[in-house]
């Protein structure tokens, strides 16, 4: 898992990197005056209680504790020597990820818990601050970086405003939501997000994680993190099913959806199941006017990490054939998390070179418009 372990032979685009805030108050400089004043208004409190985020509404759902296998679910070697949590230090991230693996572009998906906040106003403020922090402290400083737009996704109109605010900056390549939400994402509370994605020509990325306050499986709460991790595929399946059944892909005909860190071995079985059920029950979903599998293959993309690992390596080739979406699979490392996929070892078989290149570079370059070398810094900010 070091540079010496092997440089990837083809150019790489890493579609899932989790950069982090260096400190809890790192977003404060990017928060509007109104919110800074609210912080100042807390001056009657001892200093340690004056953090706006923690004191004025960083409330989310509680009661599902599944401790991760490592601190911050991260590789133990990813803690920057200069301090701060993994992937909070650009220089160290450059050295350990971008340079080590010769990565041409990396897409930043910071997981800040903003979309899960119960205080929607604060979520909107923090999303805006987070995006400005991303631009100023990451995108402005390394031309290899791209980012997802953080949105308060439980507040559709506010999320849409944030998408419109940043839609002109080409370094923001997609809109980020998390897989476990309050409602299935085909439901209309989320439609303003999809309208804004279309208006700005941006894909919608659904990333592993989040919580909408429901038991994390349809059978109730399990006991262990391994179940939490394995059950996430169920949330993705319910989201795909919801987007299809609610007719979202017909209502928003240019919307493209990227499923990140959800695996994809479940997708062939879901397509078989959906197609069969749809043939019997389609009267219920008049907007879904084609076999669901056709829409899945046209409109969904998946990232590689954490790929399910077939029992026998050659079954990975079978899986790719069952999936039939080779042009929609995009490489990701999930840096700095514990289950990081090293580019040299990510695939259980040696892929044919043309397929390897598509997965490791070209598919993402096409989706995100990265085919041409980018300018060192973007304009318009």
């Amino acid at each position: 898992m070091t540079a010496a372990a092997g440089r990837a032979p083809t150019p790489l685009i890493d579609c899932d990197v989790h950069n982090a805030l260096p400190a809890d108050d790192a977003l404060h400089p990017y928060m509007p005056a109104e919110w800074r004043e609210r912080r100042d208004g807390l001056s009657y409190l001892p200093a340690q209680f004056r953090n706006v985020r923690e004191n004025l509404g960083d409330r989310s759902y509680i009661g599902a504790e599944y401790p991760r296998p490592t601190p911050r679910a991260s590789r133990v070697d990813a803690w920057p020597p200069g301090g701060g949590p993994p992937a909070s230090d650009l220089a160290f991230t450059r050295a350990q990820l971008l340079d080590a693996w010769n990565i041409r572009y990396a897409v930043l998906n910071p997981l800040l818990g903003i979309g899960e906040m119960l205080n929607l106003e604060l979520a909107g403020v923090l999303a805006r601050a987070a995006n400005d922090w991303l631009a100023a402290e990451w995108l402005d400083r390394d031309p290899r970086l791209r980012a997802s737009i953080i949105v308060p996704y439980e507040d559709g109109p506010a999320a849409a405003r944030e998408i419109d605010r940043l839609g002109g900056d080409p370094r923001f390549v997609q809109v980020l939501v998390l897989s476990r939400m309050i409602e299935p994402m085909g439901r209309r509370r989320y439609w303003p997000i999809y309208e804004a994605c279309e208006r700005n020509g941006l894909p919608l990325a659904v990333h592993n994680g989040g919580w909408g306050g429901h038991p994390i499986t349809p059978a109730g709460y399990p006991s262990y993190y391994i179940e939490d991790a394995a059950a996430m595929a169920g949330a993705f399946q319910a989201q795909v099913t919801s987007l299809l059944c609610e007719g979202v892909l017909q209502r928003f005909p240019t919307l493209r959806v990227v499923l990140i860190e959800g695996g994809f071995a479940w997708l062939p079985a879901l397509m078989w199941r959906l197609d069969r059920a749809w043939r019997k029950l389609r009267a219920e979903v008049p907007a879904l006017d084609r076999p669901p599998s056709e829409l899945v293959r046209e409109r969904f993309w998946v990232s590689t990490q954490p790929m399910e690992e077939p029992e026998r390596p050659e079954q990975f080739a079978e899986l790719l054939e069952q999936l039939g979406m080779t042009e929609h699979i995009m490489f990701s490392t999930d840096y700095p998390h514990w289950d990081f996929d090293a580019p040299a070892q990510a695939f259980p078989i040696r892929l044919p070179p043309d397929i390897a290149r598509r997965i490791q570079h070209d598919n993402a370059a096409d989706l995100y418009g990265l085919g041409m070398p980018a300018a060192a810094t973007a304009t318009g900010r």
Partner: protein
Amino acid sequence: MTEAPAAADARVRLPPGTRLVDCDVHAVVPAIDALYPWLGDHWREVAATTQFRGPTDTAWPPTAATSMRPDLAGVAGVAESVADVRERALGPWQTETAILVCAYATEAVKNPDAAAALSRAVNSWVAETWLDAEPRLRGSLVVPALDPAAAAAEVDHWAGDARFAQVVLPVRSMTPYGNRLWWPLLDAVARHGLVLCLHAGGATGNPPTSIGWPTTYLEEYVDMASAFQAQLMSLVAEGAFSRYPDLRVLCAEGGFAWLPSLMWRFDRLWRGLRREIPWTTQRPTAYLREHVRLTTQPFDGPADAAGFARLLDQIGSAEMLCFSTDYPHWQYDQAADALPPVGDDDLRRILGDNARALYGLERRTR
């Protein structure tokens, strides 16, 4: 697609020597007063003097296209009597043994005494009006599915009646069944050598998905597969198959095409996270292959023989599948579609041998 499905007919070719076991035939309680003879004075009076009509369960909307074979639309009494099941399910398939499942949603009834009384009444109704009348049938014990201790007591009560082959639990639970809250029931299942059947459905109040309540029945139907996977993960992760080395689980009406992806995901995670569940000394796939079987309806695999063979190879063997008609539900267009596209040897296994081994039917009946 619109052609009405016949039951088995001349187009269905069963391999020579097939002894067919149908692992999922539904028995429907027509109305709560059908249970009155076994309900006891108190609950009879409650039912008669309130609007209580038994549990609410919309897992199978009665008019949904998957819920009733088209030839049965408007027919009264479907799956409500032995005569109906004999004529429409057992006869056409020349069934040797059928596992009768009454998915009576006791988990929707929050009053624990009512749930226990209803469970006892349903099991008595099955024993006296179905099993007494038809020797080809085996029963599934309904238990109060929010109350593990009471559920265990119900299993113990019927342990002497070998015609009950399994305990049926709704796959959508309040808490996954591997959780140690459920060990009293699993103890009883193991004590009496019964099969644990996880059946599609469940009305605990938990949403049908981890992202809340979907709009359509189509979504709920498709998402049911995730509930089965959550239960299997729970049984493995909590060590149920280590604690009960003879425990056998049948997943009924949940499909099976998702099994390879579950195995591949779960094994990968186990390699990284097994410290959390040290009692799992084998990879999850080993437990699943040894202890779990799945019914064939709804058939959710590829229809072509080559694609199906590949899926079966990924699952591990044809021994994991057990035939079901899911009568009176409508999962297949033609009766022939109810049979997986495999060769005669595998088909014989799926049609009967696997279920006979699962339930120990030879042992029980001879």
